């Protein structure tokens, strides 16, 4: 027999009271001013070129493809890549930052805007969208990570479900490491519904420690690096 909503609420409330009471009894009178200082590691500072080289090398180590390009050239690059992959259709988010790329692609590939709710379109998203194009907010050199900041125009599943993910990365938005990025952008004040750091195509080593790409997310991550 399943409990009712009220039963569950009662269970949870009692548990909450008991757990917090036990924990609070142990910390009562604690002086949080006296906690020892936490000293972070002092990482060396790198030049823009060094950070870029590190970013690209980490991504490539993780099987991402990095293509240096320009906004003007991007449509050409994407359509060539799609042709090589035998893909004719591209899903994209209606983001102003790369509207001209979409316009230029219009004559080259079958474009589909992510302008629908996922609720009645899961089958289409999973089965009829072989590739997607998204922007990114910024990136991290130390680990070769791209920061996705999904919103109404670029939904979360845009960069997750299609097997090939093209992502535009602006070299001017490259940060040295995750800690300094968070601090400089004050993330604690304004986290959106979801933020994802992506550092390569989906992978797994769950079978006999043998690395295989394309586990559940994109099989290919193609990074379009601009403003180098």
């Amino acid at each position, binding site marked *: 027999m399943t409990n009712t909503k009220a039963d569950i609420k009662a*269970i949870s409330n009692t548990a909450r009271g008991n757990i917090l009471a036990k924990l609070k009894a142990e910390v009562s009178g604690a002086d949080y001013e006296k906690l020892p200082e936490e000293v972070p590691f002092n990482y060396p500072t790198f030049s823009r070129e060094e950070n870029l080289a590190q970013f690209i090398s980490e991504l490539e180590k993780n099987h991402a493809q990095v293509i240096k390009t320009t906004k003007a050239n991007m449509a050409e690059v994407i359509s060539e890549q799609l042709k090589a992959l035998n893909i004719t259709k591209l899903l994209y988010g209606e983001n102003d930052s790369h509207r001209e790329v979409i316009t230029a692609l219009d004559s080259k590939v079958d474009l589909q805007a992510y302008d629908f709710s996922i609720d009645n379109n899961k089958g289409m998203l999973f089965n009829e969208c072989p590739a997607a194009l998204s922007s990114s907010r910024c990136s991290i050199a130390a680990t070769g990570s791209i920061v996705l900041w999904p919103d109404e125009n670029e939904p979360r599943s845009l960069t997750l479900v299609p097997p090939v993910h093209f992502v535009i990365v602006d070299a001017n938005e490259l940060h040295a490491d995750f*800690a300094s990025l968070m*601090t400089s952008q004050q993330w604690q004040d304004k986290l959106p519904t979801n933020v994802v750091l992506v550092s390569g195509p989906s992978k*797994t080593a769950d*079978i006999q420690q043998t690395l295989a790409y394309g586990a*559940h997310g994109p099989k290919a991550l193609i990074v379009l690096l601009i403003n180098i």
Partner: protein
Amino acid sequence: MKHIIEEESKYAASAKAFRANVARDLGNEELRSNFRGAMDYLMDKRKGAFSSEDELEVLREQCKLIKQRCLAKLPHLLEQLEGNLEKNGIKVHWAETITQANEIIAQLIAEKKGKSVVKGKSMVSEETALNDYLEERNVECLESDMGEYIVQLAKEHPSHIIMPAIHQNKKQVAKLFADNIEGFEYSTDVDILIQQGREVLRNKFCQADVGISGVNFAVAETGTLCLVENEGNGRMCTTIPDLHIAITGIEKVVEHLSDVPPLLSLLTRSATGQAISTYFNMISSARKPGEKDGPQEVHLVLLDNGRSQAFADEELKQTLQCIRCGACMNHCPVYTRIGGHAYGTVYPGPIGKMVSPHMLGLEATTNLPTASTLCGACGEVCPVKIPIPKILLRLRQESVKPKSQQPQVMKGQGAGRSSVEALIWKVWALVHKSPKIYALSMWGLTRFRFLMPKKLGGWTSVRTAPKPAATTLHERINAKQKKAKQSQQERG
């Protein structure tokens, strides 16, 4: 101290059978070779991930202090986390026991008339045996992490907390797929195997109405649930279905968002030698108006299950610093040899030996803390500097204390106490306190050494019986000194 009485976890029985499990698994050559290979691989990966000893040590100290601070403030951070999550539209539920956690989750699913669940990797849901619970209630519960999927197909449970199917090799997985997946043609090519798993599971992601995940870090300051993964199944489970339920232990909360980067860096490097996982997923809200995807509802279940017991003791509290990287098991000579299933618990290896007694009580787990050579490797690699060998010694003490001795720190105190052993140690202490009794007993032991039995229980099952010398060390030294004196006198 009051302990909650609840129905026993199914793992209590298998943990009690520890010795029999060990005998079984030590005799399985294929299993031993699978573990040896995997542990060598993981140790190598970790070694390669820390190029500078300096950086590693500074990070370990920093992360230890971060976790200790967060534990020092734990009840306040849990309240802050709850407040911020609820502000963001994420409902928070609390459970003291595994049954309560399962009841809460089952009700949340029933309310939405959910029939099909996809699960991201969650060790806490293994702890509660959630799959069994839901399946009894006709809810299909499919594991979607590749390793977990394999383990579920094989009707087993994970043998490693990071790589659940590490005990199987590709031939075994190929056979498993051929036996269970319609239309799969036997192949040991790992790419083909993974693509097969991908195909099955993508269909499920598309259809499932509920996604269940664990949590690696819950950030109090922002009300954010962080998930670390490589496969993308965690993102699938938390993005595609209409309802997302996350479950985690109360110790996973961190105070600030800025606490996350150093912990994340140590976690992935210690676990698999990766600078970062493929995906680091930060969830702060359910779908907001205008957004096109994401779950309509997000819930977090916070589970105690013995953690508050560890919290109440200054030394044992350090157990809760654990960030579940698995490095201690990767470097454990015992784990490598007996494998993950022999422990009989959800969490195997050194970390399992430390946390399981709190979850299952010492009655079921009294053997576990003794399954250590105390070589110290686990403590040396632990990214948050948990003194694992020291804590294992402490658990051994709790296990042999008189049952009634106060204060009662652990459920099942004294479960491993044997009156014969206690008497032996009492006599031992008496003998060693008095030089006269000591000399007399040594004299007896050497003169009557022929009385030493050939069979000494567990000791002689794999060793020869010890044989006392004909004379004591003291006697031999005395004799030697006497002889030296004599010859000196003769020469003089």
